[in-house]
């Protein structure tokens, strides 16, 4: 996307996320802080023991939405770089599913921007998680992205 900061890193990937590499990527000599968010697969959900997860995405739109989030962070916060990666496919308990790193001269905006990034990602990026248990599987409840202004019901 044209409004994407070329120095940011945004990815959807089936291979494991290199968290240390992404944190190092956003680090610059003008920065004084990096805040990272590491979201990983929990071994339980709604009282049931989770075996593994599967993620799928509307990949082109998900990447566009992730780039929009990064652009929004630059508009709103005095930050340096954003790295954002989300896994797809089969994930075992303990594996990182999403990783976000934000660098800035000062810690305050880095914390705020990182929090904004993960909260927005969970509401607006078209990615879906299926949870597998001993006795079955369910699609996670999730959040319905906000409809644009003027939307009416599908009826």
């Amino acid at each position, binding site marked *: 996307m044209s409004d994407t900061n070329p120095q940011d890193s945004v990815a959807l990937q089936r291979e494991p996320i290199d968290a240390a590499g992404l944190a190092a990527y956003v680090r610059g000599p003008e920065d004084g802080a990096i805040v990272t968010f590491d*979201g990983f697969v929990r071994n339980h959900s709604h009282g049931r023991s989770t075996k593994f997860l599967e*993620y*799928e*995405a*509307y990949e*082109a*739109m*998900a990447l*566009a939405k992730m780039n929009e989030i990064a652009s929004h962070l630059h508009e709103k916060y005095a930050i340096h770089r954003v790295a954002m990666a*989300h896994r797809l496919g089969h994930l075992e308990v303990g594996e990182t*599913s*999403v990783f976000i790193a934000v660098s800035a001269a000062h810690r305050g905006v880095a914390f705020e921007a990182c929090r904004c990034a*993960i909260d927005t*990602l*969970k*509401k*607006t*990026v*078209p*990615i*879906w*998680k*299926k949870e597998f248990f001993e006795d079955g599987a369910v*699609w*996670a*409840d*999730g*959040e*319905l*992205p*906000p*409809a*644009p*202004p*003027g*939307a*009416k*019901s*599908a*009826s």
Partner: protein
Amino acid sequence: MCDVAPLIRVKVLFFGRLREQLGTSEDFAELADGATLASLFAFYAEKYPQLKSFRTSLVASRNQEFAAWDTALHAGDEIAFLPPVSGG
């Protein structure tokens, strides 16, 4: 020349629980010019009655942007009906 109402052809994508319910991830639909996202959904709800129960728990996208249900469709559009998202 005969007057034939023009049809527009759009690509339709299904994800997550919707993909599983329909047993397909991609389809092409031909609709009368002037069709909207709502009428496209109605077309699929007719074809797949199990879709009706999803109606209030979906958002639609047109060309990879969230779109209102009254959005008009154009030939070549890429449409998706998206269940609640659960990334992270």
